[in-house]
């Protein structure tokens, strides 16, 4: 029997299998590495970079970096947390996140990870981009103000629903989520409320219409325990997913 391969995550020894990323092995061992665009059901994407760790002194995304035997991974140092906080602050100022008014507040992974990294202010100047809400669909609305381009809906619609309803258009700061329908409107796509793509958004961008705030404050997903213990919003019941 081949010897178990392991690496060190902070001071902890983490076993891994061939093909595992650092994230895969850490999650299986019950260790939390902050992340937003990662969801174990989908091919890793490495776009949000919030899972940045230092592996043998090199900054890498834990969700895409293959684990290697005896690797030393820094996941919790102040320096790494600072980097994550900066990335989160940039995500906040790039969009329009008005948490106090947002249906997802309290059950939002972006907000929860920001709390986890002790982000107290946006720090950078807000871009205040002009973005809209598409509520043309009977059951689902998209608030582009809150989209963080994690591409989870893109991947879910393509790989699970086989509908390819979402894609990213443009590059860099111009990148934006678009709807593949004749009019570009969600109402003219064949999205349905049961599609996987509707249930993977880590933030308050894709939401059911006509409801919100139905969980009292104090009972929302991340009200009682931090994201490091609760895990991803997508892994929980639909009912838990709204503030």
């Amino acid at each position: 029997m081949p010897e178990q391969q392991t690496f060190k995550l902070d001071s902890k020894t983490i076993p891994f299998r061939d093909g595992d990323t650092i994230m895969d092995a850490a999650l299986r061992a019950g260790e939390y590495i902050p992340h937003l665009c990662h969801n174990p059901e989908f091919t890793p994407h490495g776009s949000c970079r919030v899972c940045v760790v230092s592996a043998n002194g090199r900054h890498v995304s834990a969700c895409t970096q293959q684990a290697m035997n005896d690797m030393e991974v820094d996941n919790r140092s102040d320096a790494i947390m600072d980097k994550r906080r900066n990335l989160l602050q940039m995500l906040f100022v790039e969009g329009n996140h008005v948490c106090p008014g947002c249906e997802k507040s309290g059950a939002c992974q972006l907000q929860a990870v920001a709390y986890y990294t002790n982000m107290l202010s946006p720090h950078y100047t807000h871009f205040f981009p002009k973005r809209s809400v598409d509520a043309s669909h009977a059951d689902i609305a998209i608030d582009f103000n809150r989209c963080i381009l994690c591409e989870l809906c893109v991947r879910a619609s393509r790989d699970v629903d086989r509908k390819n309803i979402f894609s990213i258009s443009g590059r860099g700061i111009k990148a934006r989520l678009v709807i593949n329908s004749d009019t570009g409107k969600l109402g003219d796509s064949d999205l349905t409320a049961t599609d996987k793509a509707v249930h993977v958004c880590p933030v308050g961008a894709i939401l059911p219409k006509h409801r919100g705030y139905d969980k009292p404050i104090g009972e929302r997903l991340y009200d009682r325990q931090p994201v490091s213990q609760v895990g991803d919003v997508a892994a929980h019941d639909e009912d838990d997913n709204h503030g």
Partner: protein
Amino acid sequence: MSNSLETANQPEKLKRTVIEPLTRVEGHGKVTLLQDEDNNIRQARLHIVEFRGFEKFIQGRPYWELPVLVQRLCGICPVSHHLAAAKATDMLVGAAQLTPTAEKVRRLLHYGQVLQSHALHFFHLCSPDLLFGFDDEVRHRNIVGVMEDYPEIAKQGVLLRKYGQEIIEIISGKRIHGVSAVPGGVVKSLNNEEIQYLLGDIDQITEWAVGAVTIMKRIFMEQLDYHQEFAHIDSNMLSMIGNDGSLELYHGNLRANDMNGKSIFDRVDYTDYQDYIREGVKNWSYMKFPFIDSIGAEHGWYRVGPLARMNNCDFISTPLAEKERQEFRNIGGNKPVQSALAYHWARLIELLHCAEAINGLLHDPDISGDDLMNKGELQRVGIGVLEAPRGTLFHHYEIDDDGLVERANLIVSTTNNNQAMNESIRQVASKYLSGNELTEPLLNQIEVAIRAYDPCLSCATHAMGKMPLEISLVDSNNALIDRIEKGSTGQIKRSNN
């Protein structure tokens, strides 16, 4: 007479005094006074100097966000906006009637809010004027002075307010900007533990509320003539009213009476408010000037809030407050009570009513029910009206086919009182200030008149902020003659040229 003080001829030739910012009111506003060479007041205006415009900000937002979004336009009475917007969205989702539990939970929340707001206003903001006199030394005329001289009263004020805030926190999850009401209902009712907790203090709260009315009544009656006369104006009164003519703070129809108590309109469905009320604008204020359409802009302005409600209702449904209401109405004889300072008295009777109503609701089994929501067909127009602590509050939304807000119109309580506050300061200016060198105690009288209305200037312009007082006296060439500054700690600095 005071009416003529709105606009002076040749204002450039007059001495200008500015009271800015106003203190011990919620929000940021200023008063300008123009005097001629003999110190006669020629013009007096209350200006609201901030502007925020929530109506614009919420355009394009989904309607189900409204109760949570719009409560942010004010940190003083967010619950009122939360509930008025929720009522409007009830109409949008076709919930003609709420479940008994939802309606009662919302009422309890509202009474908690009115109780804490009225307690704050009386004890923290106004009791210094009333207990010490309008001309008491500035450094003493504040809540700290009350704590020193009347520690028991100050303590009761703090604890009454705390009790109201606890109700808000239990129901909405937070003391400020929580969530309780959603379109068609509420997200939670009260459990037994919460009910027992609140019941634990309610007798004490009611007793203190009775005590507060008694203090105010005594102060008012001790100098009845002066208090009747100070900032007195005769006005129409507008308020919501229960189906049976009772004092109603959460849901009912509209009633307007004229200055003699004669009906202008009655039992008007509030969703028809635009057929009865119009909003005028003046080029010197961001705040609109609403008036009763059938009477017209010049004479159709009205007052809202505790004074209007106390005058307009036929009775109060709770016994202790009803007894006080009858005593209150006696001072007006057969006519409505028109004294601006009677606002304080009426406000405290409402505080007592809230305590009694809270007690009743806490004993009602519906308050812990679990039937929380009602919905019907989606509508395009939603109008929600209630009586906020400061008066009638209108929220009106129109949505598109997708459920996004196309148009919004808010008439907040303080805006309804805009003309009335201006009239009151003109009365004070012409009666007490005119012909005098302006001093801090005299200028405070202007503020006393404004404070009686408990204006929330934040709401009125949808802005927030509170700052120390600065008064400058400048001559017609804009040269500074006198300047008094009060820092946030109460220290006074005077600078003369």
